[in-house]
């Protein structure tokens, strides 16, 4: 019998993160468990997760994310801590090797200045796992 184990990597984000900004200059953070992700990868090459926005944020609004590090074999994955979200991809976790983990926390933090008009904003954050350069 011949057995072929294919390389596979899956990344799934979960939750409906929502923030309410009470006043200009006062940051708000998503509660624990509001957003998580699951990761499965059987390739040993070091990988990283990057996050980007589908479009620029409106004036006066800034959004940051802190993505927890998954359990990972090897030297262990590391979170990059609070990272500003922009249309250009920013690294949020690095040094991911073989891993199978779920419920890894994703926390969002936003702050608005008076320049951000009072309304509901919806932004799409894309998470990409790629091989580290």
């Amino acid at each position: 019998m011949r057995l072929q184990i294919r390389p596979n990597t899956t990344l799934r984000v979960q939750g409906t993160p929502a923030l309410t900004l009470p006043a200009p200059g006062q940051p708000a953070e998503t509660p624990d468990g509001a957003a998580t992700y699951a990761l499965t990868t059987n390739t040993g090459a070091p990988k990283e997760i990057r996050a980007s926005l589908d479009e620029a944020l409106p004036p006066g609004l800034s959004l940051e994310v802190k993505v927890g590090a998954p359990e990972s074999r090897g030297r262990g994955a590391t979170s990059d801590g609070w990272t500003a979200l922009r249309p250009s991809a920013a690294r949020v976790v690095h040094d991911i090797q073989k891993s199978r983990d779920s419920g890894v926390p994703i926390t969002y933090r936003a702050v608005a200045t008076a320049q951000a008009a009072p309304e509901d904003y919806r932004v799409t954050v894309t998470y990409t796992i790629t091989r580290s350069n």
Partner: protein
Amino acid sequence: MPPLRSFLGPCRLSGVCLRGVCLRGVHLRAVSSCVVVLLGLALLAPLGAAQAQRVEDTHTVTAEVAPVSAVSVTALPPLVTGPESGGAVTGTYSVVTNRPAAQSIVVSVEGTPPEGVALYVDLEPPTGAQKAREASLQVLTPDGTATPRAVVTGIGQVSATDLTVSVRTEVGVAAAPGDAAVRLSFELVE
């Protein structure tokens, strides 16, 4: 059936049918092998592409920015004055609003004011806004008539602190000696 020559290029790549080009049967078998190999390559190609592909998923984050409009004035120091002398005090105020529509700060006298006292108010406008008039505006006349006044206009989305507020009084002989309190209201309106 296309001529064998048309299959020679791809077949050479697979190394399957470099021979047997004379007999029709061999020719067909060779062509079949070529198709199988090419099909196999075609199936493997996406697998290789998938391995190189980036894996991604998306989150939709909602952020609700609450409407905020507020004016806050520090307590003004007491003013000691008398007939014919008048006097003025200054303090500071802050204003914050994220409403896009232009707003004004309206100052008014609340309650029953003391008789014989006139009050004038002047506010330093935040960035982008203007004073309604260069001179201070009268909000109370000696006969006790209180008139709300838009002292600063054209206030856009702003957050400003430590702006100067000045209150000037004119006291006539009708004003009774003693302590008197005047309650001033500062309101941000569209």
